[in-house]
């Protein structure tokens, strides 16, 4: 069938002209069909999730083992005994409390700043006729195409000469700066799709630029912001390279470096490292779950009517 889709012309299901009669037998059959579909969906989804979860499951298992158990039986074995000592020891040895705080001090401002600044820039570039707007966008994106390793030493020099070496502040600054191109580009992609009618309606109502931004555009890009918020939180929280380049004192280290410090030159207690990893993963999981509910609901494009 090559029916062209013309949304404006097709009648919507809530239209009163939709036939109501002859629903009983159809209802029974479609209920059975939908039950099959649900079961089908869940079985596929459960299998997929279980397979996906398997390596994490291994990590969890290892976090409940003793070191000699891991040494004797390898990393992929069922625990001989379940212990929670690893969690306590990892927490203490890697000084995870302080490291967790450092990670949050770095991550939260970076995420907030990045989302704010990149949505500003995307808003400006996508909704207004700024000269060279596409070049600017591509230029900003190009900034993110550079491998981080290329810039480590220059960043180090910036940190040293600004006197901010070994502070969390410089990590926040550089993390924010280095993500801007990426995120602006992504937000631009989402903002493009918003029809211009909404903006026109707002300006007819007398809304200024910032009002338009806050009240019209930003709510419409909520799923994108939620997605980016969760992703950027994860990326920044799990960053290691920038942290170990710009920070020198262990009391400043975020949790990624703290976990790494459990690895000795020739020895590694994988049960401890697994436990530390589980602890380190918790904030990101919480953030992801929190942001999930913002994925809900499509854009309220129907509001145009």
């Amino acid at each position, binding site marked *: *069938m090559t*029916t062209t*889709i013309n*949304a*404006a012309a*097709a009648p*919507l*299901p809530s239209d009163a002209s939709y036939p109501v009669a002859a629903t009983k037998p159809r209802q029974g059959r479609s209920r059975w069909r939908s039950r099959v579909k649900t079961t089908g969906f869940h079985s*596929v*989804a459960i299998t*997929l*999730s279980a397979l*996906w*979860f398997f*390596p994490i499951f291994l990590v969890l298992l290892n976090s409940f083992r003793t070191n000699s158990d891991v040494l004797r039986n*390898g990393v*992929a074995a069922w625990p001989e005994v379940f212990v929670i000592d690893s969690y306590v020891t990892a927490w203490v040895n890697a000084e995870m409390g302080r490291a967790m705080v450092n990670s949050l001090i770095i991550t939260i401002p970076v995420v907030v700043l990045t989302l704010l*600044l990149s949505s*500003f*820039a995307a808003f*400006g570039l996508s909704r207004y*006729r700024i000269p060279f707007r596409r070049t600017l966008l591509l*230029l*900003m*994106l190009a900034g993110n*195409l*550079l*491998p981080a*390793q*290329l810039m480590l*030493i*220059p*960043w180090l020099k910036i940190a040293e000469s600004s006197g901010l070496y070994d502070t969390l502040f410089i990590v926040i600054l550089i993390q924010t*700066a*280095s993500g*801007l*191109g990426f995120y*602006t580009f992504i937000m631009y*992609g*989402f903002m*493009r*799709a918003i029809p*211009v009618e909404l903006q026109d309606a707002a300006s007819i109502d007398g809304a*200024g*630029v910032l009002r338009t931004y806050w009240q019209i555009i930003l709510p419409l890009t909520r*799923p994108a912001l939620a997605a980016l918020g969760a992703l950027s939180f*994860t990326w920044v929280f*799990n960053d290691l390279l920038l942290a170990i380049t710009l920070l020198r004192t262990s009391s400043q280290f975020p949790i990624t470096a703290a976990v790494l410090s459990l*690895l000795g030159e020739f020895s590694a207690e*994988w049960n401890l490292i697994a436990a*530390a990893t589980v602890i380190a*993963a918790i904030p990101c*999981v919480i953030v*992801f779950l929190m942001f*999930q509910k913002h*994925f809900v609901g*499509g854009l309220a*494009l*129907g509001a145009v*009517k």
Partner: protein
Amino acid sequence: MTQIAPRATTNRRRAFFTPPVVFALVLVPFTIEAVGVFYPAIQGILLSFVKWNGIGVAEPVGFDNYVRLFTNDIVFYGALGNTAIWLVLFGGLSFALGLAVALLLQADRRGVSVYRTAIFLPMVFSLVVTAVMWTSIFQPRGILNDFLIAVGLEDWTKIWLGDPNTALYAVIVAALWRQIGYVMVLFIAGLKAIDPTLHEAARVDGANVFQRFRYITLPQLRGVNLVIISLLVIDSLRSFDIIWAMTRGGPFGSSELLSTYMFSTAFTDRQLGYASAIAVVIFLLAIGVIISYLIRAFSETKED
């Protein structure tokens, strides 16, 4: 009733007058990026014109690093080839599988947040440990081979990470495992942005699932696709941690990518100038692939 323009190629007629505050909205982030990224990047690029081991004095050598890279370095060409394979397989499969999973899990039904979390979890767990788990799965007497033997496919067992023919692909599996969750998240956000009335209208018109996918979903996702493809190209070229953790680019350079080669040149060989040259090549590759794709995509969308 106003026409709801469903296609991505909307007539985004912009305001003809741009308020000055909009310039500020754009220039502030741009300046921050200029200071925090462009300026160090230029310094980094300049590093590619010297010979430096990190502790002594840097010796300017002009284009020597590049000459050596292109004319006298077999490892470079091997890494280039592997990077191309990585780009296509890792990038392509991330896209396809990420979309598939997003389509599966887009509806907000009961239990879906559990499934989504399960797929996203790999991104959240430190690579140090997950790489060890994957390495153990791929061990000669590890879980994968045990499973193959158990289902009677003993001939398929290999020394996954030790065989130059399989090492790269084994790492791609682990890398996909990590990546798909994040592609899924972006696709879900994009799918959520599609007006549900479009699907309703099509369903009433009699279109089946595949037709709806082809004629509504895909076109509506065009903006998101742009973003995701660009991101995947960037990520593919930047992929480093997982390969380094599992194989260090071995055996015999069979899983050496440009990124791992750059790292080992910088930190093992301590040739920072040469490593910077490799980084510049990666950068130019990324620019070449992405910018050409984007320019084509932009011109296709009949933007004003």
